[in-house]
């Protein structure tokens, strides 16, 4: 039993930088019961959400997700936490933005209503978003979503997709796109987190100083470093600390009836 807020960071490899931020002492997580539950994005297609929990659909995936979880969880029940931060999870907001910007720059005309519909439908079609929404529907934990960050700025394979006429639209349009998606996520009970402003360069890229070491040699423009993780967590931890727990009852591994952390119930 605990009075401390129970916080889980659930994600694909993009959650690693948050762990790095914690390990390097860049953020203060004292007073918080923190767990991580994640694995590489390719395994996310082997997850499903039902009855308020994320379930791997096979044993291998379950073991991979359990590997670096402090309690060896083979599934993730929302009811065991006060706040779950879904990180990355193959939710590529920037791809939605790029598509929208390309449509706007190319013609034919796209009305604001249709643009909103395209953005929200595309968001809701992401598997990772559906997992977040499924957790939110349980009503037992607050669900935050920090989508996969923008590509690191510089000479990247992404650049040919952003010709000048598309880039010109970024400053005016991207903030509005975020608002549309925040509203849609809120309807679904998910708090969508924008990429922290200080980490953004040129409106739709991540600043160089947040790239992983040797990003260019590794051709890794997607992952980010501990400082980035700290920037995200600095937005999230106040939310976690603001959770008011209803006393010590039902803390720790308390699971919904019928779902125990150490039993893996599988439906046929």
């Amino acid at each position, binding site marked *: 039993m605990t009075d401390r807020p129970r916080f889980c960071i659930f994600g694909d490899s993009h959650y690693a930088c948050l762990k790095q931020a914690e390990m390097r002492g860049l953020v203060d997580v004292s007073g918080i019961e923190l767990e991580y539950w994640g694995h590489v994005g390719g395994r996310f297609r082997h997850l499903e959400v039902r009855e308020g929990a994320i379930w791997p659909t096979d044993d291998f995936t379950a073991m991979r997700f359990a590997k670096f979880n402090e309690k060896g969880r083979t599934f993730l029940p929302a009811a065991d936490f006060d706040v779950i931060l879904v990180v990355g999870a193959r939710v590529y907001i920037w791809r939605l933005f790029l598509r929208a910007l390309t449509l706007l720059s190319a013609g034919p005309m796209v009305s604001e209503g*249709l643009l909103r519909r395209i953005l929200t439908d595309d968001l809701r079609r992401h598997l990772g978003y559906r997992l977040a929404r499924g957790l939110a529907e349980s009503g037992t934990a607050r669900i935050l979503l920090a989508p996969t960050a923008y590509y690191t700025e510089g000479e990247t394979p992404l650049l040919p997709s952003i010709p000048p006429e598309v880039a010109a639209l970024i400053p005016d349009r991207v903030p509005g796109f975020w608002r549309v998606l925040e509203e849609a996520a809120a309807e679904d009970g998910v708090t969508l987190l924008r990429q922290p402003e200080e980490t953004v360069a040129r409106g739709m890229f991540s600043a160089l100083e947040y790239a992983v070491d040797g990003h260019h040699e590794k051709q890794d423009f997607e992952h980010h470093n501990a400082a980035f993780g700290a920037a995200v967590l600095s937005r999230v931890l106040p939310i976690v600390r603001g959770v008011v727990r209803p006393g010590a009852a039902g803390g720790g591994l308390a699971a919904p009836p019928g779902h125990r952390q150490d039993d893996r119930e599988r439906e046929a």
Partner: protein
Amino acid sequence: MSHPYDSLPEDRFWRTAVAGRDALEIAGLWKPRHQIGRRTGIVTAGSCFAQHFARALAARRYRWLDFEPGPAGLTPEQRKDYHYGTFSFRTGNIYTPRMLRQWLTWALTDTPVPGEVWEKDGRFYDPFRPGVEPGGFVSAEELYASRKETLAAIAAAVRGANVFVFTLGLTEAWQDKATGVEYAVCPGTVAGRFDAEAHGFVNHGFGALMADMTAALRLMVRANRRLVMLLTVSPVPLTATASGQHVLAATSHSKSLLRAVASEMVAAHRRVDYFPSYEIITHPAYRGRFFAPNLRSVLPEGVDHVMAQFFRDQAAAFGGAEVGPPPVPAALEAAPEPEMTEPEMPEPEMTEAEELRCEEEILAAFAPDQRHD
């Protein structure tokens, strides 16, 4: 003594052509004037039933032309909701010959569209196609810009088509009393505000219908001398009537006039033809079998039967193999989970190198001693 009836084929006699047959065996209703083949460029417009025509042609890989396909990558649901691909341009339903004439006038001449817009809850609706933008446009300027694209599409459609298929739907409409401009629906129903001083009901008579249909044809032929027109009459009864009559009687009145207009247009213009989908769906010979229980909606099997007659009669007139029904879709997999009813966003496959980078990042954070170098 012989007489003209002696030498008529059996499809000219009720007993042999209709009463003595199973309804589904009634054939040869249409003697097409113009060949419509797979390479014929076909444009469709009109009332609800015309949508079925477009879909049926496209499904059988006929050259149905869409001059306003909308932004790339729209899902079928988005296209349907925003009326892309319903007709060959994004006008929504065009119910009367007057409405058709109006659209063609605005698209093919210098006559400007009236600036009137309808408002509702801070959003803006086009009085001439209020249903095409769910929730309305964000501004009048956006509405005008969108309409401009539709007008360009209409002009391109008329100029680019071989056959213009128009389904006549209604004789009843609402107009601006001062200008005579006709609205798609009664003001105040979808948006806007009804004003009894400004808005008037009209139930077009035969003369007006013929004049508008003739004018519409003239506009089109002026833009495309090779264009032919295929008329149909929608079999769908009126949802409601403002004529003061019982809706069943009002429906009969409207459809009778429209059917007569179609026949007169055929008689007067070599380039106009009529396809009897109306008869196939509504005639008592078919005993209402093609209507849904609401007695308004046409069942898919009705559409299929209509199109089967279309292609059979084309083949009978011009030779060539009959076109069969469209291919049946492959059996669907088990129904998705209730929370995943929309198709998933296709994700690019991760390369091996990308997977390795992801693993490395996780190991670096969670198990730095286990990293591979």
